[in-house]
């Protein structure tokens, strides 16, 4: 897939009026997240990591966003969403059971742990969870569909699209305070917004993106 916003990097705006100090601090903290698990056991963390890689496959030409680390941090810091579905245990247990459940499914179907099976096979296990087909064992009655949709999928994509790397990828303007936006109409772009490469205009977009 070609780069839709060639050369665009939200972080290049860090020192411009688009970012205030609080935002710089918040994003610095996000970029400095510890990569080692603090809540999950190393084994479950490895399962989580493998699952995140399938939910958001990341390109090899840039450092990956450490999605599993964000989820582990959320569990470690007990960051709640502010509600819990009645049929679900608390967040930490939800993950412990769900990840163990994925691993069990891999073992029973392929004879290998989730991290060791082929990516396509991992996808298949995740699809089974999404469809609510995984039960028994580690799941302890917890619906795999709810685990997948409300926890694993939700937390993974939330972590990814809360990261500057993803913002650059989708051409999102990112932080915008004190400076917001001026040109509101359709097809209008402020000079500090990502320029999209229309076919044949990649060079121009790249040039413009160098100056956001």
């Amino acid at each position, binding site marked *: 897939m070609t780069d839709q916003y060639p050369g665009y990097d939200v972080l290049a705006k860090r020192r411009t*009026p688009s970012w205030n100090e609080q935002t710089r601090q918040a994003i610095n903290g996000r970029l400095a997240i510890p990569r080692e698990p603090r809540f999950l056991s190393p084994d479950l963390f490895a399962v989580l990591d493998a699952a995140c890689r399938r939910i958001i496959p990341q390109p090899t030409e840039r450092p990956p966003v450490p999605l599993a680390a964000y989820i582990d941090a959320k569990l470690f810091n007990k960051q709640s969403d502010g509600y819990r579905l009645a049929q679900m245990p608390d967040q930490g247990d939800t993950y412990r059971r769900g990840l163990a459940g994925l691993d069990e499914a891999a073992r029973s179907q392929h004879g290998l742990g989730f991290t060791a099976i082929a990516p396509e096979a991992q996808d298949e296990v995740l699809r089974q969870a999404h469809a609510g087909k995984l039960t028994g064992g580690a799941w302890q009655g917890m619906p795999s569909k709810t685990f997948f949709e409300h926890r694993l999928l939700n937390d993974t994509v939330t972590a990814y699209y809360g990261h500057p790397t993803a913002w650059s990828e989708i051409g999102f303007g990112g932080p915008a*305070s*004190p*400076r*917001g936006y*001026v*040109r509101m109409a359709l*097809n209008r*772009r402020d000079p*500090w917004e990502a320029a999209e490469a229309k076919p044949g205009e990649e060079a121009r977009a790249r040039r413009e993106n160098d100056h956001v």
Partner: protein
Amino acid sequence: MGTSKPTGDTATAIAVLSGATVLGGVALALRQPRAPANDTRASLLPWVERSKAPAVPPLDSKATVRAARRLNRAAGTIAASVLVDSAIEHYRGAFHNEAMVTPLISASLSLLASVHGTADDRRGAHVARDLVYAAAGLTGLVGTGFHIYNISRKPGGFSWQNLFYSAPLGAPAAISLSGMLGFLSERLRNNTTDSRPTILGRPAGRVIGLMTSLGLMGTVGEAGLLHFRGAYHNPAMYLPVTMPPIAAALLGASALGEAGRRKPLTRWWLRFTALLGFVGSGFHIIGVARNMGGWRNWKQNLLDGPPIPAPPSFTGLALAGLAALGLLEDHPDD
């Protein structure tokens, strides 16, 4: 209620500027009326004109040319305002249509022609200036057409919303005003020494006075619309919709009334309107500073804040009004 008035630096700046405005107004009111007819030293600012107030000279060749030069100066002031304003606004519009550079070119030429005209004390219309001014007049008309078309295509058509935020209807008219004043100036220069100056056969002071009065009202309409959009959040925003209409009315009355008489009130009011044009820019500068991020966020606030270059249009028109008033006072035409 506590939260509806600004505090801190903004409040101080507004207070200082308001005070300065009042002082300026008083100073203008205390000034002797107008320069003597035989004083040829053109001064850039009307309120520092040297004034000795001689008896009214019945006919004076210099007076006509001086009035013409004042008109050039007025045309130039408006052209400068349009140049910067349209540059900013059309930059905001990303020059998405190539025609959007036209007002910049036209206003630049009008500005050059006006500088040239202001320095030129010869009589007789100048062909190049005439062409430039005619082009400016035309640019304004075509621009208005474009802007009307732009609004008509928006959902809602000619609604308040589109009048507020789509291409402004009144803006292109400003470049036409510059062209008109310049064009009148050239006509004025075409008068011979020993006749009462006329334009198209009518007394020049009256023609210029009336046209300027109409121009003022148009500009008031534009300022009124935009200040309404700003909800008149500061009382000073009422000034450009109250002072200039009175100036326009006084000038109109002078243009239609008896000529050859001193009109101190009209003169003071026009001078104050000229001052207001600059004060307006001052208020707009405070407005930009007051927006989020202030001047550090100039890339946004110059565009989103109140338009700094717009208010001097009033100055330009008031200058033209003063030129007309000079002619009217100097030349009883009946």
